[in-house]
């Protein structure tokens, strides 16, 4: 889970002021915006691909979330993030009214590039209505686009392509899934709140072999590395008393991948719905409950706006006893956009040795 940046809708177009402590209000549902008529993620469902790579219009929100660690030939390290959020305005298509501008969905996309050697974190965003071809998504062949940013596939089982350019930086990658989609939660149903309807459908492709280039200003770098795709759709997820979350994705050198999110309540305590999965190299899955993982912040970084984010952690698995030291590749990886959150590339060490990399997202600080 993670990326419950749902309330982005309220922040779209600056129509509402950003809540002062980022997202600390009631994340999820914008006030007054009923869920009536929308489908709910309240029971397990059968997943089917490639259809489920495409949009699920009956649910209120949905995202395609790519993160990854890249290196150029000289070993220069980059982290990147691309997210496309679909937010439905209505459960059914907006009544036809003789205008190609009429829209039932709006889209928000975030793009970021961490340049470790350059000590810069570039980020940008896009908003568009799903009308006139400005933004949208389709399953076959996969195409998700928000204006000139696009994630696409020429045909099923072909590599995915990401092309997105901002004023200052460009990301162009070929992404080849290393394995079929992996279902998170209980067979893809990921509970986020006590209320049975507060859940989402959630699957991941935890490794996509990635190659391509990134451009920063006039400098171009040929890069390769690993990406992680998260797909999630829901209508309502968080409980009102949930204040934020810490989401970890670790890609370990031994071939295993770990995802864990900790939902924090207003008191800063992990809520019982905090959960994750450890996918072993042989494909076996070990479900992680709140009690299975201990998270301890080790170092805090203070952003310009005065908020502090823990950028170094110790993640301890209590079952298969392992202790990961997690450290941001760069402290300043704040997404200072309409929705402010910290999202960045991390390095994973165990007993002093580098054992993998990954991504970390933190909200509600």
């Amino acid at each position, binding site marked *: 889970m993670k990326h419950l940046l749902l309330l982005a809708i309220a922040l779209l177009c600056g*129509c509402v002021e950003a809540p002062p402590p980022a997202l600390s209000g009631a994340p999820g549902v914008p*006030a007054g915006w009923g869920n009536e008529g929308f489908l709910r993620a309240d029971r397990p469902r059968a997943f089917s691909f490639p259809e489920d790579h495409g949009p699920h219009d009956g649910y209120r929100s949905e995202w395609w979330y790519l993160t990854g660690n890249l290196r150029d030939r000289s070993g220069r390290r980059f982290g990147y993030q691309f997210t496309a959020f679909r937010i439905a*305005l*209505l459960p059914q298509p907006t009544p036809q009214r003789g*205008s190609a501008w009429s829209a039932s969905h709006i889209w928000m996309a975030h793009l970021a590039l961490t340049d470790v050697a350059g000590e810069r974190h570039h980020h940008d965003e896009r908003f*568009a*209505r799903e009308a006139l071809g400005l933004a949208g998504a389709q399953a076959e062949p996969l195409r998700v686009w928000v204006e000139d940013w696009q994630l696409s596939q020429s045909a099923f089982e072909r590599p995915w392509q990401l092309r997105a350019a901002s004023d200052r930086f460009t990301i162009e990658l070929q992404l080849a899934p290393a394995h079929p989609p992996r279902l998170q939660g209980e067979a893809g149903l990921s509970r986020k709140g006590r209320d049975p309807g507060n859940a989402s459908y959630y699957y991941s492709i935890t490794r996509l072999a990635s190659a391509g280039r990134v451009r920063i200003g006039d400098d171009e770098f040929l890069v390769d590395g690993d990406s992680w795709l998260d797909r999630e759709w829901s209508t309502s997820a968080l409980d009102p008393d949930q204040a934020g979350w810490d989401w970890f994705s670790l890609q370990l050198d031994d071939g295993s991948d770990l995802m864990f999110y900790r939902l924090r309540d207003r008191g800063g305590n992990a809520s019982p719905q905090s959960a994750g999965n450890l996918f072993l190299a042989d494909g076996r899955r070990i479900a992680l409950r709140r009690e299975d993982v201990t998270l301890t912040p080790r170092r805090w970084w203070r952003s310009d706006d005065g908020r502090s984010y823990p950028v170094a952690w110790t993640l301890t698995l209590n079952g298969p006893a392992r202790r990961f030291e997690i450290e941001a590749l760069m402290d300043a990886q704040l997404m200072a956009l309409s929705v402010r959150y910290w999202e960045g590339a991390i390095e994973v060490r165990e007993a002093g040795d580098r054992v993998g990399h990954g991504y970390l997202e933190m909200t509600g600080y």
Partner: protein
Amino acid sequence: MVSLLHRSGRRHLLRHRWQSALAILGITLGVAVVLAVELANQSARRAFALSLEQIEGRVSHRLVGVGGTLDENFYRQLRRADGLREIAPVIEGEVVLHGERFKLLGLDPLAERPLRSLLPKLDSLQLRTLMTTPDTVLLPYASAARLAIGTNDRIELEIAGERRSVTVAGIAGDSGTAVPDGLLLADIASAQTLLRMPGVISRIELRLNDDDVRKLAARLPAGMRLERAGRRDSTSRALSDAFQTNLSAMSLLALLVGAFLIYNAMTVSVLQRRAQFGTLRLLGVTRGELFRLLLGETLLIGAFGSVLGLLLGWLLAQGLVTLVARTINDLFFSLRVSSLMVQPLDLFRGGLLGILTTLAATLLPALEAARSEPIVVSRRSELETRAHRAVPWLALAGIVSLLAGGAMLVLFRDGLLAGFVALFLLIIGYSLCVPGGVLLITRALQPLTERFGGIGTRLAVRGISASLSRTGLAVAALTLAVATTLAMGTMISSFRTTVSDWLEQTLQGDLYLSLPERANAAAAAQLISDLHRLQGVRELSMGRSRPLELATGQVRLLALQTASRSHRGFTFKGHTLASLWPRFHAGELLLVSEPYAYREHLQAGDSMTLPTPAGPVEFLVGGVFHDYGTNPGLLVMAMSSYRHHWRDQRISTLGIFLHSGQPWEPTISAIRRLTASFGEGASLAANGEIRARSLALFDRTFTVTRVLRLLVVLIAFVGILSAFMAMQLERSREYATLRATGLTPGELLRLVVVQSALLGLLAGVLALPLGWLMGETLIEVINLRSFGWTLQSLLPLPLLGEALLLALSASLLAALYPALRLSRLPPAAAMREE
């Protein structure tokens, strides 16, 4: 000593409180009018600037189609292929709400943020409603409050003649944030549907750097133009500015009248105290002290009058601002001024203007007083001799000023400012000649009154030239005041007559049918052939009118297929090309409206390039026609030529010529049946109806000028009253002497009344040439330079009569009180008065 001096000054002001009060009233009214106009103008400008700021925001450029609209797909292309980010689509149209003109802006809320913050902080539900519920709008706080409309109310809009019902999804802004009044905001999809603009948008607004501009300009498809923001409506804004400059100038005229009156009042007040000043000088008061006393007194009057003027002006402005805004709204662009925007600086300037005017007007009298010799009684006769000696010099200065004014008009053929400077030179010049005129006329009258008049009349006439130091001035002030009202009246009535004649001339058809913009060509063609078959219809003319974006701003293009009588609808200014109409119909010629031709310095024989969908095409200007419509420019071409170049077969209006001598009603009902399928957007109006409506609009837009004129009349009246009353009171002693030497109260009464009437009449008569001159200048120079209109100038008799009546009634009323007082007072008491 100084305190004694001040006490004497205070005593004087108090003893002559009528006089003081009237002087204060003069200043008050003058300052009030100037300030009111200034506040109204500034408020209108600020409201406009504010709304522009809000609407333009950080927009640096606009992409417009030469035909008035753009293909909406081009927007996607810019977003997706060119990756331009700070751009937003806009659909704009005019709608009528509660009888007021509103601008409907269709926006994409998601594209707005980088460019501006017009859209308020909506909650997400409102945003969703706006984007997904058809026919929903946001109303600015100011408009909502003014029209008592709330969220979720349904309101009726009139759009291109059709009634549409829309829902208010929310209120934009609050009392603190200024989303401009007069605006309706909607999601672009709603606006497109409401305005019936499928597939197109009005423009794309962009924030571009120089590099982007070059790149974009290089690859712009034909039929599109990239222009800098703020260029749009620049013509309308220039016209509106000219209108406001005119108002300011008229308000200054009011102040000038006021200044003259103060000058008069202060001169009289100095004259009254000659003896006292002589005494004071004997007691050792220096000239400087005397000068300062007078200035101090004036300052007091000026300050007091100015403060009152500020208050009154502020009150007046409340009403005036509505009128000014309404005129701008009717004529130039959508503008709503919800409240007076007063800045301390305006008030300061208004106050300062009043005080400075008062001081300037007092300078001469104060110097006069300072010249007082230390003797008990300075001789009055000496003063009059001096006044008489000054007359030729004043006249000479006046003639020089008149010539300078005339020369300016000839030398500077352009420029509004030069026009106004010339106007003021003419006014001052003429006023300086007035004392000479008074002298000449009374001298000419003297032999007549000596022979036919009684003692009172004879004394009255002789008294005028004998006390020229006061009468000359009073008459000059009166002349100016009366002339100003006459000139403004002349201008307004000339304007109205011109427009009315023009309407009669232009509207040659008996009925006019306008079709909605969405009416397609085939339906229109069918309608035309059906109309031709109707019994009562003799002939049809057809027009297609559309906006055209030129480099110089937006104009209207009218394509005409004329009927045999239509040609009479055009009257041309200057020469036209030979065989104008045959060549016009052959598609060679373009006819250009006068305001546009004046602004762009075009005349018959010049060529003009128009952007057509197929690229620029050059046309020859066949003639410049008079046009008093509200357009900043109207270009007329033959329908065949338009259809050829624009590939547009649609029709906007039909002029229907009926057979004479047959009843209209059956034909009208038949036409209505034929047009029923076009819906509400098709409207049929008889020639007379359109004329009446147009004139009603004209009258509405001239309300503010009329109000201003009434204010000037008021000031003139008060001024005359004060000047004459002061003059007569000042002569109390003289009259008392006459009474003592045997003049009966009745004779004295007659003397005073006859003299006043004579002076009033004199001023009235002298005002006629000046009024005419000012009127001509306003019409031929100021209006032409402001708006590019040639008006027929008329000097209607009723206005002349009104001018004389004003002068006479005010002067007679002014004589009443002094005359009664004097005739009742025993001579001995009156003689003691001074």
